């Protein structure tokens, strides 16, 4: 949704830019359309790639998740009684 929103903002700007450049330089319409298509496409791909990589890296910290999970286990009320079975927490 965010990609579509951004592209819908950028597309009219690019169209205006290409029309202006075509008007100034008397470029063929075909080139201006190609330019518009490539620029908008590259911009959209860039945004999609950024969002994907951001999402992927946000959920790619298994070490912190594991430690957080362990901290949750340690904070359980019944953990102390349970943990006394361990080597480093003797009953004596």
């Amino acid at each position, binding site marked *: 949704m965010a990609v579509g929103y951004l592209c819908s903002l950028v597309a009219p700007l690019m169209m205006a830019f290409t029309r202006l450049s075509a008007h100034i330089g008397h470029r063929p319409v075909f080139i201006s359309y190609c330019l518009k298509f490539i620029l908008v496409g590259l911009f959209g791909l860039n945004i999609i790639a950024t969002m994907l990589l951001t999402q992927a890296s946000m959920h790619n910290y*298994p*070490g912190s998740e594991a*430690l957080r999970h*362990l901290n949750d286990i*340690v904070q359980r009320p019944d*953990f*102390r009684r349970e943990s006394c079975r361990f080597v480093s927490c003797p009953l004596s």
Partner: protein
Amino acid sequence: MSFRIVSLELKQKYEEDRLSVHIDNYAAQTGASLFLHEHAPPHGFLDSPHVPMSVIYNKTENLVWPDDFQHFDWIITEHAARSSQHGHQDLQWTIEGSIGGLRGFELKPMGDSGVWAKIKTVRIVQEPKLWLLRQRHD
């Protein structure tokens, strides 16, 4: 009472309630940092935990399996096969949980039939990367 005796008493008190956790290299690289050492000093500006429990977080590398791990109660490891191996003497490791990490990206259709089946989207695929193993001595 000398400083040495006080230190010894504190050390004994600390060791009575301690819990030792080993964090392996991959876990340390993927976010198991000092900020998550909730049950060990320094606590800094964070609140102390509700249930007081001293935990020793160990990140020593190149330990030899299983002899060097017999003193740990918990290990965070990327080697799930260690749970099926016996530790030192009658000690055994059991899996208490697994945590997923990025495996890659894949294209999947948005629906099962019709137009939606032809439209494909990129999805993030995860797979278990780290395992929480607890030492049991039955």
